[in-house]
């Protein structure tokens, strides 16, 4: 499974990418929206794990942009924020919504669920 991680927290996204790699996932990561779009242009991903709030662009906006590039890409929102608006928006955007911190096993289970759906 090829996964795109997008989060402005570099420490978080690099570590998570490495851990997923240990578990056999092909992982790319980006800490800026523009980098994420560039990666999507270049590679084909099964799934993207997006932060809800990033400088400049929200996770929902990025999802829309990525969907334009790759129509079949699945999404998981992984965020430290849990506001009502985020929760409603994230849950209703045909995506899974997880709040940090999350166990790697839980994340992987959700990733598989999302890809199968």
């Amino acid at each position, binding site marked *: 499974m090829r996964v795109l991680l997008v989060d402005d927290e570099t420490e978080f996204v690099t570590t998570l990418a490495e851990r997923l790699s240990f578990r056999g996932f092909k992982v790319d990561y980006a800490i800026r929206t523009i980098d994420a779009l560039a990666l999507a242009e270049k590679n084909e991903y099964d799934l993207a794990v997006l932060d809800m709030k990033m400088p400049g662009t929200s996770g929902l906006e990025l999802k829309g942009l990525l969907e334009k590039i790759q129509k079949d890409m699945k999404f998981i929102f992984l965020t430290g924020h849990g506001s009502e608006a985020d929760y409603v928006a994230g849950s209703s955007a045909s995506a899974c919504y997880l*709040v940090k911190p999350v166990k790697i096993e839980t994340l992987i289970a959700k990733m598989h669920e999302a890809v199968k759906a």
Partner: protein
Amino acid sequence: MSLLNHFKPAFWQKSELSTGPFRQMFNFRRIWKIAVLATSLVTLIPLIFITSIDYNYTQKSIESENLLRTLRIGSNARRSISFFLSERLSALTFVVRENHIENLTRPEKLDSILTNLRASFNGFVDLGVIDQNGVQINYVGPYSLEGKDYSSQEWFKEIQGRGFYISEVFLGFRNVPHLIIAVKYTMPDGSFYVLRSALDTTRFNELLSGLELSGRGDAFLINHGGVIQTPTLYHNQVFEKIPYAVPEYSEHTEIREERNKAGENLIICSAYIPDSPYILIIVKEKDELMKPWRDTRFILIGFLIISMTVILVVILGFSTYMVNSMYLLDQRRLSSLHQVEYSNKLASIGRLAAGVAHEINNPLAIINEKAGLIKDIFTYTDTCPQNSRIIDLIDSVLASVERCGKITKRLLGFARHIDSAIENVQLGNIISEVLGFLNKEAEYRNISVNIDLADNLPEFQSDRGKLQQIFLNIINNAFSAMSVGGRLEIKVQREGENEVVATITDNGCGMSDTDLGKIFEPFFSTKTKIGGTGLGLSITYGLIQELGGKIHVTSRLGEGTTFTITLPLQPPHPVKRDS
């Protein structure tokens, strides 16, 4: 005292908040006092004033009526007596003018005249002819008075000047009260003679006793010296002096008020009888005459008292009702203000919690991933040899991160549901979430919490945020009421097809019956000294009502309290508004 408290309106029983952001708009006791006083004065003063005027007017009117009636009776009696005397004088005058002296000196003729006079005018006792020397030359009557010489008597001298004479009442030879009337006739040669007759006073007495004098009224004649001439009912005997002053001469009938020796108020009517030595006296007791007034007065005063009582009762009742309604409205306003403030506070707490949770979640996530990576390095690579102590330490870090994550997620979950929204809820889960906030307190205070959830509990449509607030308030209260080692029992079961019932029982300090009756009232608190606002259960009550549910509480002082919350499985229909 307690009975009085029972009737005291709510605004009177409560202490008033006169300062602070949630002060009452009005001083209700003062408003009530002003309302009662002002309306009482405006209604009662005119009533008392009018009644007072009516009282005096009626009294004066009855007094005046009594005086006038007595005066009228006196005036009529005066005319009757005057007429009686003048009629008999005229009869004698007619006799002396119609008959020659020779006829009058014949006994049989005089007797015939007396018989005719008696037939025409009652009261004539005898008849006598007296010559100018004062000697009675002819006499017919029951006594033998012929030849009697009257020349030395006062009346004979008086008649020579006036031409007629009416005597006072006297006993005379017969020892029977009677009076004398006499007329003088002057012949052409200048000589004269007198026709004299004794009149029985019985007719006088009949005249006076026939007057319509109510009660202890009395009518009699006196002479100008105040000596009683005819029998009286309640005064002295004939020929005794009257116990009052002799009225001054007046051509008219007069009336005056006088107090007798017994202290009784009397109305005395007097009238001088013209051309006679008599004064008519009518005496009435004023108190007796005023009896109808006293009856009227009792009715008037009774009416006034009843009217004032009714007015005061209505004023008190209506003022109390109005001021109490104002008070309840103001209480509702204050309660709404508090509720808004409470909601705002909760929303602020929610936003703060969400912000804190977000800020903490990101570093927590980094810790989580870094620790996880270390473990992965030990697990998935050969770089580092397996070290079970390090793996244990990393697992401990990961467990702590997971624990922190649960706390922040719970905070986020609580904040997320503050705003009102109907969604599918499972009551057991909500209670568990709420207890999640209180687990540590329960642990520290050694409070055991037992949850009994029925198997057939359905998910149902309700407002998660409101349910959280409801159970948080009630379980918080239960925790406050319990001491160390307390026990909290929570039981949730389905009731019928459409309801679910949650029962929360603690073994805390409980409440008295008096407190129990006020527990849902705004601002009622048994914890004011330790910072209670008295709004928690009031707001809880309001929230349950908004959800279409019911709340019931039972408590025994020193034993504990049970709250029973019944919730509908369908949310209440919103009120339709006209567009």
